[in-house]
């Protein structure tokens, strides 16, 4: 501990892992991942100098996020991506990741809804399409690539907030239900 109080702050700007590394684990199957990438490209392509979902690493990030999410959310995604793939196969004879933009629109548009916070659509296919759209947008807009584009255009950064660290945390937590 000696000398720590006297040492100057370390002027280091940390990288986030996404900047240089990729995930080594995978939750979605190859077909599901391919469908998710196609969905990302269709729902949030690059526009007006801002990165699209693919450039922002959104499919890979969502694969990780959903892999550690509760079972009901994992089911929404996995079954939704399977459904999209099955629909594309049923209507056009091709997997979802091979559909054209016109074909994709025919599959997606009937399920688009407007909705308010905490009240996503409840019909299964509408629920999946609208929730995954919202998640794709959030993951993309909150990415470092998006932030760099905001800085380049002189826009106010949209993902800035006051982060609370744990306050005097109880590191000896024993909060599993007992008795």
């Amino acid at each position, binding site marked *: 501990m000696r000398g720590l109080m006297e040492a100057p702050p370390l002027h280091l700007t*940390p990288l*986030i892992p*996404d900047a240089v590394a990729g995930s080594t684990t995978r939750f979605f199957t190859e077909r599901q991942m391919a469908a998710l990438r196609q969905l990302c490209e*269709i*729902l*949030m*392509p690059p*526009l*007006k100098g801002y990165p699209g979902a693919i450039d922002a690493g959104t499919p890979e*990030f969502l694969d990780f*996020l959903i892999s*550690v*999410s*509760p079972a009901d*959310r994992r089911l929404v995604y996995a079954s939704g991506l399977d459904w999209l793939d099955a629909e594309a196969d049923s209507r056009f004879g091709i997997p979802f990741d091979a559909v054209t933009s016109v074909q994709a629109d025919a599959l*997606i548009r009937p399920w*688009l*809804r*407007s*909705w*308010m*916070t*905490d*009240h996503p659509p409840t019909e299964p296919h509408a629920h999946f399409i*609208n929730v995954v*759209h*919202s*998640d794709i*947008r*959030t*993951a993309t807009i*909150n*990415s*470092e690539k*998006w*932030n760099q584009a905001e800085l380049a255009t002189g826009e106010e*950064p949209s*993902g*800035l*907030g*006051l*982060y*609370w*660290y*744990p*306050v*005097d945390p*109880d590191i*000896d*937590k*024993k*909060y*599993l*239900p*007992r*008795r």
Partner: protein
Amino acid sequence: MIAREPVDVLIIGSGHSGGMAAKILTEKGISCLILNAGPIADVHKDTEVRQAYTLPWRGFKQPGRLPHVFQSNAFNANTWVDEKEVPYTYACGQSYNWVRVRLFGGRSLFWSRQSFRLSDYELKAKSHDGFGEDWPISLADLAPYYSRVEGIFRVKGHPDGLPQYPDGNFVLDDSPWCGSMQRLRSAGEQHGIPVCKARESLGVDGLASSVNLLLPDALATGKLQAIPNVVVRELRTDPKTGLIREAHFVDRLSRREMSVEARVVVLAAGTLESTRLLLNSKLANSSGVLGHYLIDQVYGAGLVCSVPEARDGRTSRALMDGSALIPRFRNLNTKAKNFIRGYALNCYSGTHPMDPRNFAAYGKELQDKLDSYSGSGFSMGIMGEVLAHYEHHVSIDKTIVDAWNIPALHVDTRYTDNEFNMAKDAVDTGCELAEAAGFEILTKNYEPNPPGYSIHELGTCRMGNEPRTSVLNKWCQSHDIKNLFVVDGASFVSCGWQNPTMTILALAMRASEYLAEQMRQGSI
């Protein structure tokens, strides 16, 4: 155990009600000890401005964490009580959102600042419509305390002369209406619905909390001591007198078990924590209604509109930067078709970009809509009264304990047709007003958020004149135990549509002055 001198007044909880009790009692010369379950936060040490992409989940809430705190996000998650650390249970299919903060100052650190008085439509609701019970006090009893509280909290408002929206001691809001709100007011006039200025606590330097408005005054008297990080397990009485004698608590971090003796105990831990403590202590329940008549407020139903004249780059603060409050207008002089009591509508307009979820579109089409509609958003949301039913109650779940082995609470409540019909009426009425004002309705939602979402849980320890049907008297004093007071929202008989903070503060002030006088007379 090493014996210490009993404290004069032990206050459990440091939020608005505990802070007010501490201020009033110490200013009257009474020594107080305040216990708080959580730590003291220091925003300079405990927070940092960060970009979402630097957070572990890229700005998403950590999966599985705080599922019942809809208000939590990646930035503020560490401020809320951990649901696994302090669990609670509810009946299958009857979800309840119990939203808690245990930092010193409690939820007073983060509340919305909306500041309203209850009217006699709420305080004497049974006399008005026959349901439930009247409070044992009226607006006339509370008015002097409301005025003093509004002075401390610097409530900004405009007098409207409406009995259902009682005027107060305001920092006058005579700001001009923005154009969109003026159009809503005109539409309201056509429908006989008042559209008024909202009322909010300005506080001091932007904060309206017990930590900056109440506790400093108490500390300045030299008569307040405080212990953070202690979780009260149980209150015990003297078997000879039946009065509260001591509080047993556990250190949050070390798990050390300790106790303190007190001449008087003031519970201010928040509605359900105060009731939980009394239930676990098996005290103050000769009436059998402790834990019953749980109420909160209907939130979540509402609509989002666009003001066409503000689109395509034409937005301006003069047109779009404003807010309003539509106070209760139902069931005053006429009866609504299928619900009793009433609701208010919060109205907001702004020059900010619109939420993309308001458009059933994606890709370039969505971006074009966002560009066109940016700055034209106008929203309305319900704050509605929930009826108090005996069956809606909390009890102790003996199968679950928290991280300190304190038995958890079980919540058994649900919304009824009255709440659902009220929410539908609110949205439909909002739509009528929006259309009359020339707004385009983009999204609407009829479904309330789960009970508890409003963070206005009230009741379960209600006041009344009759010890057989109430836990507390009109001074928030236990009918059964004269040296026990409950000064938080647990004493409410009905909830109204109004944010309860001003009423909680007024009741705490009134109860504390009564307690101080009783102690001065030697009655307690």
